[in-house]
């Protein structure tokens, strides 16, 4: 019995020595067969995709410059209550801004602030930012209404799970509700997209 075990061990050792170049490992497969026999061998490959957490928000044109939309009532229509469309925007014939919101970071809230210090357009209190209407063409990506105090919000509709992939056009108009002193009244709206 002891001799038999030695013979088995010796034979196995020799077989290993003589088959090193055709050894079957995890991702190497070698199969032999007699003529006509089926042969199957396989090898695996692992794949890994790394997706980071991200948030992309764009209002108007891409880039560092800030888009500008202007409202200019005709001299004979100042304060007559007829809304005045804008010019200069990149959508809706100049009255609007294209908006893109993409994220995988959960429910996104959009906040609208301004640089008027509570004084509205021109910071003087002459024209309130509530005189500017804002409208979205997508119910999934509503625009916050503008106010002198800022901090108005909307919530974007999630696309799937924690993912948001929405596009919209936000259009603006000047209500032209009452006459004001002639001049230029400026304000910058600061939109911020916030993830949890």
């Amino acid at each position, binding site marked *: 019995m002891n001799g038999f075990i030695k013979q088995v061990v010796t034979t196995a050792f020799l077989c290993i020595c003589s088959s090193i170049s055709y050894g079957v490992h995890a991702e190497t497969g070698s199969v032999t067969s007699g003529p006509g026999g089926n042969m199957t*061998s396989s090898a695996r*490959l692992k794949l*890994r995709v*790394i997706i*980071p957490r991200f948030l*992309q928000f764009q209002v108007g044109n891409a880039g560092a410059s800030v888009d500008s939309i202007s409202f200019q009532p005709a001299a004979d229509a100042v304060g007559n209550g007829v809304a005045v469309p804008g010019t200069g925007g990149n959508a809706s014939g100049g009255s609007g801004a294209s908006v893109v919101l993409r*994220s995988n970071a959960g429910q996104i809230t959009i906040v609208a602030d301004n640089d008027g210090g509570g004084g509205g357009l021109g910071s003087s209190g002459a024209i309130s930012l509530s005189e500017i209407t804002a409208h979205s063409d997508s119910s999934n990506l509503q625009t916050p209404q503008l106010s002198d105090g800022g901090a108005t919000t909307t919530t974007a509709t999630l696309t799937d799970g924690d993912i948001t992939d929405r596009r919209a056009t936000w259009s603006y108009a000047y209500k032209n509700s009452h006459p004001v002193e002639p001049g230029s009244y400026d304000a910058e709206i600061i939109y911020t997209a916030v993830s949890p």
Partner: protein
Amino acid sequence: MRKLSILRSVPSLHRLCIAQVAYPMIKTMMLSRHLPIRDITVPLLLNFAVLTCWMADTVNNPAAAIVVNIENDAPAEIFIQVGKRRSISRVRFRVDADDVGSGNPVNGNRSIDIQLFIRAPAANPLTGFLTVDSSTPLNNGSGATIPVSEISWTSSSGDIPSDSFAGTSSQQLASFTRSVEVSDRHTFSYKNRNIYDAGTYNGQVTYTWFAP
């Protein structure tokens, strides 16, 4: 008798090597009962000794010719290797935060060598088929998945042509109708067409090389 015939058939240097070194060592091991005394052991060990001495002789006489006889009735054989020989290779795709789902393809961190061969007697030729199973999506361990069909590859030689994973269990990639050895290099790419949850998505595909 087997021992004598083997010794007669090998060159003089081999005979000297076997007679002076290998055979006395084998005999001593057998007598000391470190090796079993069986008919099969002697020829096996002497074959091993011949091989060893031949290798030594080849090193010392590099100009010597080697004659290889290929038997016509050798068994058919297929072979496949994908990437590393001794472990499963991995291709990684890292998407930049400002590029997620942009549609800009993301190249894998390495290319993968794929080697195949199929050998069969001329009288009984075989056709080899290469298929891949990519039916199990990549997953991030939290329930989110990416279909493997979001990954494509380009072929360096065209033997295993450029394509995308189909996300199916048996996508045929190539077939060869004769004995052939194929060496190709695939460079993989993540299509990056959609937004997925943040995370590290792992998965695996299995290449099957078979001759029915």
